[in-house]
Every structure is written in structure tokens, then in C-alpha cells.
């Protein structure tokens, strides 16, 4: 019998329906809440990741959402992907090498590529893996200011990688002197600590520093499988043990000066053991290990040319090391050790007021990426080395030169906004690519807008898809895949509420897949394969009403491979996020978040493997926060409050899916050292 969700959902919606406020009450609530903030807290949340100009929700030319610190704290988020799980049509899929890969608007393929992760604007997606979800799954949330999620193609701005969307992690920085510390621990062995410091250096410089570490002990997460030898049901355990450290140091001059600059240094290390591995074929020991770190240096310098124009040079360099290990079907173990480098530079010209109604931005870009080393070692169960060889893509490199412009033109007294942009990329190995985007935004008034958005994106094959590996051959004629997305958006933004309704349709052409040869003696093949189609609706509504806080979103998404006519059925057709918060007084607040997935299959149906629908996913998390004074806040989280046995789809064909976490209770405190 399916889980009885009707009654709880109804109960949750009753307060929603009852909270329709009168405007005066909303006004009082809004002003009242603002008056409770310190003067340092009276800041606006920015939207910065979809253009070179700051944007607000009405004028932004993409479906982008900001996830704030408060938002993920009140949901008890621990890892980066936890923080994202409040967006409509965004799901997290357990996939190869222990990753929880971000999927947007369907298209749940086993290869998790096409969502770009940016860390202060620096693209992190691996040239080798095509994603940052394996190497960088856990940039400590307490080293971030906020996260911006774009649920539509971003290649017209970011180039390859930003195919299905963008997750932009904006690292901590402050405009005033402050010191925050956070520490917490949970009953499942989870631990976390972090510190954020901002200090003025002289009259015109500022240093921002954030350091965080978290992890968890052995989870003994039981899973069941059908033993391939006996055909009987058997069980085993995964550890899901990890340890992560993140550090950010930023030094910047006063951005209000005509000449300003910013230096950033970033480091992240992730060491995880006993996460899910390959899937059914190696079930008895389906565990993987990932040990990866990255160091980034970024420097930007900006010169104001006159009152409304500027030129900025941005450059960055990163080096990444990653070691993976997982068992093979034959009982042997494989480990892969790789190094990767990327250097990028952009020269950006901005003009705020061209012809009095146009914001103009143009950029020239350069990017070079390289895999200087990658080695594969295969050992038998007793540890003897059977193979120790370079990967075929060792030494692989790519250079990209790009040009883009991205403009806004306001017409009809700012009622009509045209967003138009174009990006041209010239690749050293796959030729050139042009990606346009267009947005027509009609502001019905200051608070309502209708948008028609078009975005084109492309993704060049990764070095592995170009070169192949020992198990998957490459197609010498492989080409970039492309996607066209059309969105119709209605947005309502008021003092205490925001509502967005999005209808979207996407056509993904020449998708790059690892084609299964259905023959274990013949390697699979990376190749372009057919077209895919996705469509759906997203609704989100946020409101702060008297002492209540509502964060609601829902999506209905269908996507299919048009060539095979098979649906991407592992992506839930329905995703609901229902968050309800209540502030008892100035110091005590409570927040309950429900995340619900309906109608998702346990795994992709491929070849002889059949798929079955997973039981409905419903997780409830509870957060209680008590501020004892302006400096000290104590918080408690219960994740998976009802200890429900939830399963997520397995993209690597685990027949029962991958089990979500069990109940855990976390206690922690936040302390602000400021007066």
C-alpha cells in the first residue's frame, strides 16, 4: 500500500489557505521583521550569476533562484546538494562513484553531465568527468553567502558545461567587520564547524576569510540486492563516511574606487569512503572511494571608465587532484588517479546606459584545460597489481577562445525589457559553436511580469568522450550536443511574497551517450545519439505572513528519448517542496520542510534490465532555532523526522534504488563575536 500522504499534505496546505493576509498585516509584519534586524543585516539579496549586471527577479532573463544561508540553515542542510533541494524540477540522483548528481527538468541519464558548478564564478566541471558532482560534492555551506540555481541553459553566458543549468556558489564575503562561528554534531556521527571573518584592512581594503569542515562516521547503511550467483536476496552495508575541508580567503580593495581589484584563494578537500559504487553488477561490494582536492587562485581588476562604464579583467587558475576506487564485476578493484588543470581569463566591458535605455556588456574569453596525468591500476582481491597503465586521455587538452555580448534594452518606460545575447566559442578540438539567448520581459507593473525566454546551449564532449577509456570506445566523429529551451514565465513579487509559474519545453539534439553494445565482450561507445524532449511546469510561492513563513514549490516534468521513445522515468514526474516556518517570538522559531517525489522509477530500463516504480519519496526535516541574544543562537535539526525508509533512483541500475539517510538529530550553535 502506498504511503498515505493525502492527509498530511492537506494539513500542511490548510495553514497555507488560511494565511491569506490583509495588506496592512503584511505591511506591519514586513516592517516589524526588518526592524528586528541589525543595521548590518539590512541588505538585499542579489542576483548576479546570469549576467554581468546586477539583476532583480523581474528583469532577470533566466529562471534563476537564490538559496540563502537562512534557507538552507532552516532546512538543516549539511552538504551542498542538500541546499539545492528546495527548487522545483531539481532532483539529486545517486550515481557512479558515490555522486549525488544534480539533474534539472528531467533527462536523467546515467552520465551526469551538463550542469555547471561555479565557485565565485570559476567553472569547476571537470574536463575529464563533465561534472563537479564527483570531485566537489561538499563545498562547506558555512563558507558561502548564497547559492544561485539557474534551471535553464546557460551556455550563452558560460559556454560549455552550462547545458541544463548552473549552480553558482557565492563564497563568503561581508562589507563590515564580523566574526561568526558555527559548530554542530549529530547522532549519526555527523560533525561540522566553521568560522567566517571579515576585517577592514586600512581605509580601502578588506579581508574576508571562511574556513569550514564537516563529515560523518560510518553509517552502516544496509542495502539489499539479488545475488547474481545464487539469485537469492542478500544484503550488505555501505559506510557513507566522509570528511571535507573548505577554505576561502578574499582580499579586495574598495569597489567604489575608480580602480578596484579582488584576489581570491580557494581550497577544498573531499575524502569519502563507502558510498555507492557501480551498481548491480558488483552488488556485494558496491562501495566507492573518492579522494579529491582543488586549489584555485582568482584575480580581478576593474577600472571605471566613466560614470556608467567599466572594464574588468578576470583571471583564474586551478589544479585538481582526484583519486577514485571501486570494485569491478569480476572481483578485482580499480583505482584511477588523475590530475587536472584549468586556466581562464576574461576581459569584460560594461556600459550601463547606452542610448539611455540599454545595458551593454561584452567579453572576450580564454580557457585552457588539461589532464596532465591519469593512471589506472587494477588489483586482484588479494591486492596484486594486474594492470598499471596511463589512461588514454592522459595529456588531453583543450583551448577555448570566446566572445560574448549580453544586452538589456528597456522600452515603453521600462515596461518592456529585451534581453539578448550571443556567445561564440572556438574550440581547439571540436570547432566553433554559437549560442544565442533571447528574452522578452513585459512588466505588467512594478510587481508583475510575464517573460518569454529562449536559450540555446551546447556541451562539447569531455576528454573521455573524445578519447574513450578501456571500457568505452570513442566515436571519432563525435560532435557537441545542443539544446533549445523555451520558457513562459509569470512572476509576481510583492513585499512579503513571490510567486513564479514557469512552463518550459526543451529539445536536446545529438545527445552524447555511452551506447550499450549489449555485449560484454565488446566495449560500449561514446557517441551522439538521437534527440530528447522535455516539458513541464514549475510553480513556486514564497510568503512571510505574520509569524508564518511559507516556501512552496512543485513541478511536473516529463522527458523522453525521442529516438527510442523511452521515457527518462527515473526523474520524478512530480516534485513537491513544502516548507512551513513559525516564529514564536523574537528568539524562537521552527521550520518544517517536506520533500516529496512521486512517480519515479528505481533505475533506467536498459537492455535486459527492467525498471519498476519506486515507492513515493517523502522526507520531513525539522529545525528549531533559539536566539539567546544577538550573538548566540542554538539550533536543533531532525532530518528524516519520521525515519521513513526512502529510496532514490539508482542511475547505475541498483534494482531497489539507493536508500536515503535515516533519522538523525543534530544540535549546534552559532555565535557572532561582534558587539
Amino acid at each position, binding site marked *: 500500500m*502506498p504511503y498515505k500522504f*493525502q492527509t498530511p*499534505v492537506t494539513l500542511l*496546505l490548510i495553514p*497555507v*489557505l488560511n494565511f*491569506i*493576509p*490583509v*495588506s*496592512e498585516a*503584511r*505591511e*506591519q509584519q*514586513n*516592517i*516589524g521583521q*526588518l*526592524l528586528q*534586524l*541589525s*543595521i*548590518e543585516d*539590512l*541588505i*538585499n*539579496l*542579489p542576483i*548576479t550569476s546570469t549576467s554581468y549586471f*546586477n539583476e532583480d527577479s523581474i528583469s532577470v532573463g533566466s529562471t534563476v533562484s537564490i538559496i540563502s544561508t537562512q534557507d538552507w540553515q532552516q532546512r538543516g542542510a549539511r552538504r551542498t546538494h542538500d541546499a539545492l533541494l528546495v527548487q522545483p524540477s531539481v532532483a539529486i540522483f545517486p550515481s557512479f562513484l558515490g555522486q549525488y548528481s544534480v539533474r534539472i527538468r528531467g533527462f536523467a541519464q546515467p552520465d551526469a553531465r551538463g550542469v555547471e558548478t561555479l565557485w565565485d564564478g570559476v567553472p569547476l566541471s571537470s574536463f575529464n568527468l563533465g561534472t563537479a558532482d564527483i570531485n566537489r560534492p561538499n563545498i562547506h555551506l558555512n563558507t558561502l553567502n548564497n547559492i544561485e540555481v539557474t534551471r535553464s541553459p546557460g551556455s550563452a553566458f558560460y559556454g560549455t558545461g552550462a547545458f541544463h543549468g548552473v549552480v553558482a556558489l557565492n563564497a563568503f564575503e561581508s*562589507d*563590515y*567587520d564580523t566574526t561568526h562561528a558555527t559548530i554542530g554534531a549529530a547522532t549519526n556521527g555527523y560533525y561540522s564547524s566553521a568560522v567566517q571573518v571579515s576585517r*577592514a584592512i586600512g581605509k580601502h581594503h578588506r579581508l574576508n576569510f571562511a574556513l569550514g569542515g564537516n563529515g560523518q562516521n560510518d553509517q552502516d547503511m544496509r542495502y539489499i540486492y539479488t545475488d547474481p550467483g545464487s539469485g537469492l536476496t542478500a544484503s550488505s552495508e555501505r559506510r557513507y563516511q566522509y570528511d571535507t575541508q573548505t577554505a576561502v580567503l578574499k582580499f579586495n580593495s574598495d*569597489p*567604489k574606487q575608480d580602480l578596484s581589484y579582488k584576489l581570491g584563494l580557494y581550497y577544498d578537500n573531499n575524502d569519502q569512503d563507502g558510498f555507492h559504487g557501480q551498481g548491480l553488477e558488483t552488488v556485494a561490494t558496491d562501495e566507492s572511494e573518492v579522494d579529491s582536492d582543488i586549489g584555485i587562485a582568482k584575480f580581478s581588476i576593474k577600472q571605471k571608465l566613466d560614470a556608467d562604464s567599466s572594464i574588468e579583467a578576470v583571471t583564474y587558475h586551478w589544479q585538481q587532484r582526484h583519486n577514485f576506487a571501486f570494485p569491478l564485476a569480476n572481483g578485482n578493484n580499480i583505482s584511477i588517479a588523475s590530475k587536472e588543470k584549468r586556466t581562464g581569463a576574461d576581459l569584460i566591458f560594461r556600459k550601463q546606459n547606452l542610448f539611455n535605455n540599454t545595458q551593454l556588456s561584452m567579453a572576450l574569453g580564454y580557457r585552457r584545460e588539461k589532464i596532465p596525468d591519469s593512471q589506472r591500476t587494477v588489483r586482484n582481491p588479494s591486492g596484486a597489481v594486474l594492470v598499471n597503465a596511463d589512461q588514454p586521455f592522459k595529456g588531453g587538452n583543450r583551448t577555448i577562445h570566446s566572445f560574448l555580448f549580453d544586452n538589456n534594452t528597456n522600452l515603453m518606460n521600462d515596461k518592456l525589457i529585451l534581453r539578448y545575447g550571443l556567445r561564440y566559442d572556438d574550440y581547439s578540438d571540436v570547432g566553433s559553436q554559437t549560442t544565442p539567448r533571447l528574452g522578452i520581459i513585459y512588466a505588467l*507593473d*512594478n*510587481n*508583475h511580469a510575464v517573460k518569454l525566454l529562449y536559450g540555446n546551449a551546447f556541451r562539447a564532449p569531455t576528454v573521455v568522450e573524445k578519447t574513450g577509456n578501456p571500457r568505452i570506445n570513442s566515436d571519432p566523429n563525435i560532435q557537441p550536443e545542443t539544446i533549445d529551451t523555451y520558457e513562459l514565465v509569470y512572476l*509576481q*513579487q*510583492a*513585499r*512579503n*511574497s513571490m*510567486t513564479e*509559474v514557469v512552463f518550459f519545453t526543451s529539445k536536446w539534439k545529438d545527445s552524447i551517450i555511452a551506447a550499450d553494445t549489449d555485449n560484454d565482450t565488446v566495449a560500449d561507445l561514446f557517441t551522439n545519439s538521437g534527440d530528447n524532449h522535455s516539458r513541464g511546469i514549475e*510553480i513556486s*510561492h514564497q*510568503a512571510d505572513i505574520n509569524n508564518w513563513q511559507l516556501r*512552496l514549490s*512543485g513541478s511536473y516534468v516529463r522527458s523522453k528519448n525521442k529516438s527510442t521513445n523511452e521515457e527518462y522515468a527515473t526523474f520524478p514526474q512530480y516534485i*513537491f517542496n513544502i516548507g512551513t516556518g513559525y516564529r514564536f517570538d523574537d528568539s524562537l522559531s521552527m521550520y518544517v520542510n517536506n520533500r516529496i517525489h*512521486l*512517480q519515479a522509477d528505481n533505475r533506467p530500463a536498459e537492455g535486459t534490465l527492467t525498471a519498476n*516504480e519506486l*515507492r*513515493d519519496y517523502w522526507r520531513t526535516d525539522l529545525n528549531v532555532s533559539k536566539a539567546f541574544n544577538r550573538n548566540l543562537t542554538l539550533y536543533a535539526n531532525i532530518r528524516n523526522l519520521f525515519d521513513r525508509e526512502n529510496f532514490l533512483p539508482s542511475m547505475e541500475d541498483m534494482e531497489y534504488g539507493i536508500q536515503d539517510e535515516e533519522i538523525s538529530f543534530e544540535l549546534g550553535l552559532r555565535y557572532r563575536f561582534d*558587539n
Partner: protein
Amino acid sequence: MKHFRHSYLTWLIFAWVTILHCPSSLAASNDQEYSIKAAFIEKFTHFITWPQDKHSTDSSNTFNICVLGNNPFGDKLDTLARLTKIKKLPVKIYYLNHDDDISYCDIAFITRLPANQINAITHKARDSSVLTIADTPGYGEQGVIINFYSKEQFLGFEINRIESDLARFRISSRLLKLANIIETHGGTP
């Protein structure tokens, strides 16, 4: 589980759409910006000391916030006045024309107006120890004591130290640390 309850889902979506189109959700018309500016105005008063003779010569026993010109706040300042006291005094809001007497105001929020008028107002405000606040580019240099501006992703403000000294305000270092300091004289009419 294949037989999903579509009637239930329809109900859920219907409920949602009902919420989204509820008139009260759409009623609010002013944006968040002026709510935050209203809150800033209240916060400023915690960090600023008015000259002692300001309230001894003013027998109103209220803290008077005046808005000069077109009121951009809607009813936000009136709401503020209902919710809080400033300097232990009830708050009263006055909506004035640019050429009205402002000597009884403790704070005067000045909307955009011609340059010759701004000089006249800042001169009057200086003599009467009225804290002038605006949100127009360049007004800080023209003698307005606190001027809001959009600063990168945040709402920032600048403080004209010379004007604040001339009007005999004492401003806390905590507030000054958050501000962009202007040290130019606003001039006289």
C-alpha cells in the same frame, strides 16, 4: 503505485493556483526597497545623537519624520510609526512640500528635486539640526547628511561628515564604519 491518484493531484494543483491568484497576494504594490529604507531610517536613530537643544526647543514630544516631495514610501513610514518609538518618543510622520518649514522635523527625507532647491533645504536643515536623508545620486555631495545608493549587490549609504558636524550631530563610529564617508561642503544658497 502505478495508479497514481490524479484526482488528488488535481486538487493539489488547484489549491496552489488558488493561492497564487488570491487577490491579497497581489495587493501589495510597493516594493521591498522602501521597506528596507524605512527600517534603515529607524536604525540610524540608534547611532546618531541630536544636539541637546533640538528637543528642548521643540515642544511636540514626538519624533518627527518628514517626507519632502512625492512620497516614495507609501504607508511604510506610517506603519513604522505605529510599530515603534524613537528616542523614547512616539513617531509622527509629516508629508511636506519642498518649500515648507522643516524646523520641527527631526528627520527630513528629501526626494529628487532641482539642485537649487536642495541647497536651500540643506541650509535650513543645518540651522535646525534636522537629519537630512535622501536616495538620489549626488545628494551626499550636495549636503544631504545620509544618502542611500545601490552598492554592488547591497543597499549602501554615504554620510557627509562636514554637514553632520555643521548640524551638530554626533554619529557613532559603528555607523560610520558602514558608510561611505563624504567630506565635501554642501554649499549655501
